[in-house]
């Protein structure tokens, strides 16, 4: 009897302590597979340099091989962590198997994508060198082994106590790596889609792997406890971005991303916080841009004034605000989807009005389809934005100047969003979005509060539009459409907000970045951009309705209902203590 009882306990103990030999073997095989993948990237995969990237050399990896290399290393290292190698256990706070599967799949997908792309681009499998075959075979091994591994997902374990300088260093390192990854994507060759597609595959799988391993939760715990450090790190990362670009066109991508992300964030106040669907938001950007162009002193402007930049920006914002109030005041009194319809109409009316205020169909204000070109370059305190300037030995061209200016606007909008959102008025917005009847019964003047959100959104778009007009040095009506192949258009902005995550700061920034960058890098996609939006949104609604970046409330929901409850809560509490300590 006693032996019967003790034996199973012993066995269970053994299982918990040391994994079954089969599991160990599979993990070792996975590590070996990762290593083999790494080795294969040092071989030539093809014989001609016609394929983008340098995949023809024995001895060092190049082009898409680099992605296989990085993912191969990651697979190997995580497999070693799964084998309980000392010093690596921190890599998998919430289990290794799922992360390993994602990494193995990522390595496999990137490698096979490369190999197949070589065969297709160069017409035939004969173009593959033995290295390509080897890579294709060895990257399949970890896929097989990881899917045979038992799932070891566990609730997030408590992190080891680290001194605060180490934690801050980790945050800095995370941002540095982030900057490197973003840079890599932006600098991929725009003439060939293959490197960017490979990059997207690799980043996608790696990101999911990091989530599954629990590292993302770990990092967000850290960033939560060091809020100001995180903000500074994010700001520094964004500021140094243009100094890392060797081509001005890359910085230009950065400027456009900053503008569209900022506008999307402004829209997020309206859509995400207050729950008002604004389908003509781009028109407010247009109002700001046109206003700024008219008062900029452009030779083509019908008004003969030249405002300094700050005044042009304020004028743009104020005129946008007025339009916002004029559109919002009659519509926001009504419940239901009237606002969506009215804003949709306003967007189109704005574009048509700009087209027709050309002196023949209407009063001469906007030069019709020609728009207002020749907006003079910005000059603030004698600092000409179109000239190249040198900062500490590193020169910054026109795009770099505008990038930094735009970044300033982004920071202001982020501040406005977070401060307004986290206050009495922000709570009223969310309450209205959640249940308008209950909100009014709690004493909230629904009309007033909604109008404030709508007008604030319009003003921010107007300000961004004023900067954008100067950056583009021209405004034309066709930039401000409801839907079209080039951003900004209202569909693009709404999609960026929904895709990224409504009601969050990071969401629209990330959403706008992805939606802008992907079609930009994959030119062949541009004609299908709207289709791709649709597909992306359908997939998102099916698999991640809260958007890529879930907001705090949804995260909380996850924490409360999921297994993560207890350790997550203690982690947060520790974080809070950390903050008070840091502040004291």
């Amino acid at each position, binding site marked *: 009897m006693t032996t019967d009882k003790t034996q199973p306990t012993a066995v269970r103990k053994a299982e918990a302590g040391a994994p079954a030999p089969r599991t160990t073997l599979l993990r070792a095989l996975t590590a070996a597979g990762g290593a083999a993948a790494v080795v294969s990237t040092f071989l030539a995969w093809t014989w001609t340099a016609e394929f983008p990237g340098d995949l023809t050399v024995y001895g060092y990896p190049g082009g898409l091989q680099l992605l296989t290399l990085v993912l191969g290393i990651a697979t190997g290292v995580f497999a070693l962590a799964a084998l309980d190698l000392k010093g690596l256990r921190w890599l998998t706070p919430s289990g290794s198997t799922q992360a390993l599967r994602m990494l193995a799949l990522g390595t496999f997908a990137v490698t096979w994508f490369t190999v197949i792309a070589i065969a297709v681009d160069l017409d035939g499998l004969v173009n593959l060198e033995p290295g390509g075959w080897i890579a294709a075979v060895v990257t399949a091994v970890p896929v097989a082994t990881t899917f045979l591994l038992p799932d070891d997902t566990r609730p997030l374990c408590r992190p080891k106590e680290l001194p605060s300088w180490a934690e801050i260093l980790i945050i800095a390192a995370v941002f540095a790596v982030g900057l490197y990854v973003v840079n890599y994507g932006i600098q991929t060759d725009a003439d060939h889609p293959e490197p960017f597609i490979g990059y997207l595959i690799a980043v996608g799988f790696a990101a999911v792997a990091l989530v599954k391993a629990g590292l993302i939760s770990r990092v967000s715990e850290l960033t939560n406890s060091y809020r100001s450090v995180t903000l500074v790190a994010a700001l520094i990362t964004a500021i140094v971005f243009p100094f890392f670009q060797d081509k001005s066109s890359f910085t230009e991508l950065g400027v456009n991303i900053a503008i569209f992300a900022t506008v999307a964030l402004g829209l997020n106040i309206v859509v995400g916080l207050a729950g008002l669907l604004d389908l003509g938001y781009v028109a407010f950007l247009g109002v700001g841009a046109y206003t700024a162009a008219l008062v900029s002193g452009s030779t083509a402007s019908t008004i003969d004034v030249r405002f300094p930049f700050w005044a042009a920006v304020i004028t743009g914002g104020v005129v946008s605000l007025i339009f916002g109030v004029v559109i919002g005041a009659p519509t926001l009194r009504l419940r239901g989807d009237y606002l969506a319809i009215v804003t949709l109409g306003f967007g189109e009316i704005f574009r048509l009005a700009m087209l027709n205020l050309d002196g023949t169909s209407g009063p001469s204000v906007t030069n019709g389809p020609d728009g207002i070109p020749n907006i003079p370059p910005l000059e603030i305190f004698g600092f000409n934005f179109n000239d190249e300037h040198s900062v500490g030995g590193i020169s910054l061209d026109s795009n770099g100047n505008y990038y930094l200016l735009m970044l300033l606007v982004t920071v202001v909008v982020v501040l406005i969003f977070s401060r*307004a959102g986290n206050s*009495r008025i922000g*709570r009223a917005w969310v309450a209205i979005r*959640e249940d308008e*009847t209950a909100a009014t019964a*709690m*004493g909230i003047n629904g009309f007033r509060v909604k109008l404030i959100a709508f007008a604030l959104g319009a003003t921010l778009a107007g300000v961004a539009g004023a900067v954008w007009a100067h950056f583009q040095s021209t405004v034309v009506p066709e930039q401000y459409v409801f839907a079209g192949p080039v951003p900004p258009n209202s569909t693009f902005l709404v999609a960026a907000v929904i895709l990224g995550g409504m009601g969050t700061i990071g969401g629209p920034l990330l959403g706008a970045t992805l939606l802008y960058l992907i079609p930009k890098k994959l030119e062949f996609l541009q004609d299908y951009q709207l289709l791709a939006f649709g597909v992306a949104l359908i997939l998102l609604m099916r698999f991640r309705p809260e958007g890529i970046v879930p907001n705090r*409330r949804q995260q909380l929901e996850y924490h409360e209902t999921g297994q993560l409850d207890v350790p997550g809560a203690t982690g947060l509490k520790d974080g809070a203590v950390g903050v008070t300590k840091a502040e004291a």
Partner: protein
Amino acid sequence: MTTTTTSPVLTATGVTMRFGGLTAVQAVDLDVHPGEIVGLIGPNGAGKTTFFNCLTGLYVPTEGSVAYRGTVLPPKPHLVTQAGIARTFQNIRLFANMTVLENVLVGRHTRTKEGLWSALLRGPGFKRAEAASKARAMELLEFTGLADKADHLSRNLPYGEQRKLEIARALASDPGLLLLDEPTAGMNPQETRATEELVFAIRDLGTAVLVIEHDMRFIFNLCDRVAVLVQGQKLVEGTSEVVQSDERVIAAYLGTPFEGAPGAEEAAEVEAAEAGATPGATGGATQDGAQRGTTARTEDGQ
């Protein structure tokens, strides 16, 4: 025990609400005095919730007026709340994706003034007001026993606690009169008892309470005065004893048609349908009441 000498917090005069051909509330007069707990009972569909909606401005009454401490209220919900009448909803209407604390903070809206500018500038005044709101909200959560759930999403609370949170949120506007629409619906006997205590405590804090409830034991325990609404009309009003022994009430409320009542058959049918599962159409409600009585007695004995 009525305190008719003091001037009333609430004076509803001739409140009538018609939806097309249907008169949901007809010429109802009702006063609530400071420090009073008044019950509003009546069969389903009698117009109780509609009457509440008229009082709080969610509906604009077809006729009649509502006055708070002698001032006639405009039929705008936020102005009614600002004046000092707060309410809960029969079908819980919390802000599901906000935390418990945030829900109560929203309730503070009318008692704070910080607008967009002060939120953006974050001056010392803003921080002070925000801290004061939080402190008051936590106090109310403490009062309703939800303090330890402050950071939970309100949608994840169990049903009974959601009802309590509705009360806490309503109290956050420091109301002079609290309207509770079926606060114990769906609660077990223990929770009902706790809510009873809570309502007494609210009254002791100086807030008058007007409460709709189907649980007769709850109502007659709690209320200084009870009004009975049937078919949109006020049938009787008086102390628990008076109402309990009124024949018309027994007839109307328990579903036996009384003489001359228009459409009383329909009311009876509704009652019968409700009693559904219990055998004996008219006996259903009585049996139910008896059962409640027994449960309560055993409880008391413990």
